[in-house]
């Protein structure tokens, strides 16, 4: 574990009474209802729950992709609600890397161009960006596919590109929303392992919203969420789930 600088806080993400409500027809839908979570720097934490439990809404709140109805999200002790559009863009560019279930790569761009795009937004020169991008793609195992377009890559490969892209600007946090959702069992395991390796190598905090139980093995902590509320938070040691028997390999 690397020693954290004295000025950096131990908690990279904190939420206070986070709530998100939608008004549908005449009723109020409480996607999130008073969620309080403190996430430590360098942690690998999984938010788990059934569909509709609020995991994706939680993901959107932390990632600054949507505004909460109530409560606050603090990233590096900074309240996200206080940030203007430019500062939010900066945050999304440098501090947070995003990984989605549907990969969300830009279809008209090659793998390398996809990975270097956030670097360009961060102000890197094209040469520096391409060098860094190639190294990242190499690290995720796609060194020979730099110039392939997403349509020429398999699901697993696209997710690897997405992971490389998420790491483009050395973010402190990687947010993953159902990263294995569109992948088969074997590929899903590879992606989970790759994320864990990134967590170990670079100390980047990984927050993943998922209902893939395979994620439990690599997580430091698991937050169980249901109907917009936290049921419980467990350290990995406390969890007793035998996933192996379900795989049938």
């Amino acid at each position, binding site marked *: 574990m690397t020693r954290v600088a004295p000025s950096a806080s131990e908690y990279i993400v904190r939420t206070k009474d986070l709530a998100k409500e939608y008004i549908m027809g005449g009723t109020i839908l409480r996607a999130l209802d008073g969620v309080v979570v403190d996430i430590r720097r360098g942690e690998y934490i999984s938010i788990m729950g059934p569909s509709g439990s609020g995991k994706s809404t939680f993901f959107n709140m932390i990632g600054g*992709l949507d505004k909460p109805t109530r409560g606050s999200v603090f990233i590096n002790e900074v309240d996200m609600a206080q940030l203007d*559009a430019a500062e939010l*863009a900066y945050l999304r560019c440098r501090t947070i890397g*995003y990984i989605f279930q549907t990969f*969300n790569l830009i279809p*008209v761009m090659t793998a390398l161009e996809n990975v270097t*795009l*956030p670097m360009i*937004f961060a102000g890197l020169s094209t040469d520096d960006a391409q060098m860094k991008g190639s190294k990242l793609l190499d690290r995720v195992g796609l060194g020979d596919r730099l110039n392939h377009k997403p349509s020429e890559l398999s699901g697993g490969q696209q997710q690897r590109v997405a992971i490389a892209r998420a790491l483009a600007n050395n973010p402190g946090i990687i947010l993953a929303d159902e990263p294995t959702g569109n992948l088969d069992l074997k590929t899903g395991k590879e992606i989970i392992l790759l994320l864990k390796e990134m967590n170990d190598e670079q100390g980047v905090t990984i927050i993943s919203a998922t209902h893939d139980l395979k994620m439990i093995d690599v997580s430091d902590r698991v937050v169980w969420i249901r109907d917009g509320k936290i049921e419980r938070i467990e350290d990995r040691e406390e969890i007793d789930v035998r996933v192996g028997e379900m795989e049938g390999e």
Partner: protein
Amino acid sequence: MNMTLKAIFVRIGRSAITASGIFLGTAFLVSVLTQTAVLQGHQELDEAASARNIWLVTMSLVVATVGIINSMLMAVTERYKEIGTMKCLGALDRFIVRLFLLESGMLGAFGALLGALGGFLVTAAIYLIRYGSGAFARLGPAMTIRGFDMPLWLGIVGAVVLGGILAVLAAIYPAWRAAKMPPAAALRVEI
């Protein structure tokens, strides 16, 4: 810039539809200008026809602009996911707007150029057939605004520039709307 060119060519169908609106509008404008110029040269145009022409031209430009707004709205809607993703990567709102303005500007300029050419050639052909080679011997003004007689060549250049500008203006609203959406909403769209 690079992204814009790629975006245009990969979605060549959509690009063609957007450009064709401006193409038709400009073609019509230029054909009317050419017609006026030739007929004025032969002293054949009367007041009523002149006024009607201006009305026709204005209407065609309005129609073309509305067509572009619609086309750009569709183009932007189809790419909500891309826009949401780019915002997640740190793109500023004005980058997104600029991206779409550039795209529509290029399509507009291209469409207007082709339209002006098409409109001129078709009208010229008609009059050459009708009047023989003497058709273009004497060209009157293409349009008279407050006593200023505009020569045909100026009218054509003006039409091309106007087409390009209209295309950019038409894209402002759709592009701005897309840029302002919260990324979560943009990414949620499934097309």
